[in-house]
């Protein structure tokens, strides 16, 4: 039986979704047992990238605005959190305040950076957003003088973990015979956030706003003639995309406990863009899949080092370099073999719920 059909079947869908939820709940424990704790961290990080990729998907996938500086919003969210919850300024605001605040600041940046690019199309937009991404990074790197704000290239350390009351995610807890290490704790928080992001993306996609985004992607001029205020709709896409990035950034800062401009380079923007494209632009499930795959792939390629040791009795090629080489190769091959992505948008399910409308 077709798996997709299982999820739509009225009788089996609860069962199917229940199985998915169970697998996701058990995943960190199984992963830890089979592959070790470092892989639990990797899948937790992959969930952060799901959020990031879905945020960029709003801008690139839905609205068709090619943004090559998206990681800047991740950086803005991360630094907003880090500066207000670390010894840097000796303030420690609660995360329930900081995450929305970081999202809001990122959204403002989204609008500020989006506004000058509204008239630009295609490749020009790409290069300007790329420039903005670099500008933000240059500032993060240099805003340690004359007043030390970002601590420059050294970055910010000792960032507060997520905590509520006495419960800190940075501590190990035991529950129902299972050990929840900090990585496990964060995994579950990220899982909830990623699920929310997916739900938000789907709801936006199937809404008046989502239609307007796709319309300006397909034909901006026709969209404006049909009464779409293209300026507002584009800014909204930038702001929404930035919001997702900002929240993910805040979570990232608390998870790592340390951030520096190193984490927010052009290659990271490109990586997120590749997740969107590999998964299939505009397809929420595909993009989420792309994010998980592309986070896991370079990590999996790390094993090449030990394999070389075993096969050749020495490390011929620096595994980090080989990883990047294979990543580049994978991008090229992927585009040559499946240019529309792993999971292209075939046909959006039009008028879901028209059955009741009809």
């Amino acid at each position, binding site marked *: 039986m077709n798996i997709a059909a299982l999820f739509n079947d009225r009788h089996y869908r609860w069962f199917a979704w229940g199985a998915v939820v169970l697998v996701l709940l058990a995943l960190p424990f199984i992963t830890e047992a089979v592959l070790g704790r470092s892989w639990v961290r990797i899948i937790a990080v992959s969930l952060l990238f799901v959020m990031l990729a879905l945020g960029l998907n709003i801008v690139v996938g839905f609205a068709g605005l090619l943004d090559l500086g998206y990681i800047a919003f991740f950086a803005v969210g991360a630094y907003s959190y880090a500066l207000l919850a670390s010894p840097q300024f000796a303030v420690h605001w609660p995360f329930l305040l900081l995450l929305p605040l970081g999202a809001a600041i990122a959204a403002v940046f989204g609008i500020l950076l989006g506004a000058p690019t509204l008239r630009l*199309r295609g490749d*020009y937009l790409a290069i300007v957003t790329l420039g903005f991404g670099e500008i933000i990074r240059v500032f993060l*790197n240099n805003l340690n003088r004359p007043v030390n704000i970002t601590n420059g290239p050294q970055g910010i350390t000792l960032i507060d973990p997520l905590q509520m009351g006495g419960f800190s995610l940075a501590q190990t807890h035991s529950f129902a015979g299972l050990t929840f290490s900090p990585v496990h704790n964060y995994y579950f928080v990220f899982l909830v956030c990623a699920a929310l992001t997916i739900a938000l993306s789907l709801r936006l996609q199937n809404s008046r706003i989502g239609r307007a985004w796709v319309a300006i992607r397909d034909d901006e001029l026709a969209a404006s003639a049909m009464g779409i205020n293209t300026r507002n709709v584009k800014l909204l896409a930038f702001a929404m995309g930035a919001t997702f990035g900002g929240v993910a950034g805040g979570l990232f800062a608390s998870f790592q406990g340390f951030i520096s401009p190193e984490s927010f380079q052009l290659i990271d923007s490109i990586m997120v863009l590749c997740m969107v494209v590999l998964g299939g632009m505009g397809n929420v499930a595909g993009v989420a899949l792309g994010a998980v795959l592309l986070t896991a792939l370079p990590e999996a390629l790390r094993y090449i080092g030990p394999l070389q040791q075993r096969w050749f009795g020495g490390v011929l090629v620096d595994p980090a*370099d080989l990883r990047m080489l294979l990543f*580049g190769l994978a991008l090229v091959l992927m585009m040559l073999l499946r240019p529309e992505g792993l999971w292209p948008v075939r046909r959006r399910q039009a008028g879901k719920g028209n059955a009741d409308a009809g």
Partner: protein
Amino acid sequence: MDIFAQQLINGLVLGSIYALVALGYTMVYGILGLINFAHGDITMIGALVALTILQGLAAAGLPAPVLLVIAGGGAMIVCAALGLSIERVAYRPLRRAPRLAPLITAIGVSILLQYSAALVWGKQYIALPKLLEPSAIDIAGAQLTTLQLAIFLLACAIMAALLWFIKTSRMGRAMRATEQNPDVAGLMGVNTNSVIAFTFVLGSAIGAIAGLMIILYYGIGHYFMGFMLGLKAFTAAVLGGIGNVGGAVLGGLLLGVIESLASGYIGDLSGGVLGSNYRDIFAFLVLVLVLVLRPSGLLGQQNGDRA
């Protein structure tokens, strides 16, 4: 020493190198509508090949001009072959693919080139053996070295030759026709595949010379050097009006001058708050300003429906 004149000279020299690299971007974009993201890295390969040749022959006792011609020639051959194969393998199959697909491929090729270079040359900075003893000429209180003069003149000569070639030669006419409308050009008997391949070869060979110049100018090479260079050259191409060969020249020179002057004066202008470590953002600030005021670049056609 006159800071303004000095920065102007430095800017023009640097700008002429930007312009050479920008030509590669703009020619490919003009014909294929593709940002050849890997072009900066092709230049990097050219630079490192030239550097290796110079290192290898340094002990041979050949006169410097002969050495430079060999190094430049070698780099051009390697880069031309590289450009040709990249076009053939990575871009040609994607001509009719969705717009983002070739851009992603180009990013993939860029990463491949960078890390292949890291494998071959390592990740450390590589120094150029001392070849030339450039003497300096005093102009308006500033110093112009013979090396700077040579770079600038050679760059100008290459650009003039290219413009002339595109304007007058048979292949140049085919390039312009393909740029206007590849389908119609094809119908008119232009072999668009070979025109496109030729464009890559030409752009890459010019990039190789730019790479050699960078090596001579800064004296060091690095596997990642193509990244910022490529970015700025692309900025220069957009600034001038991407797809427009004359625009790339103008954009490159302008960008070099603006960057030099701005990084020379930023400390004074901002009362010491901002230092020359902000140098790399000027390119982008200029770009944003120009695009907002004149989205098609300085010499680009005002074409509302582009892209």
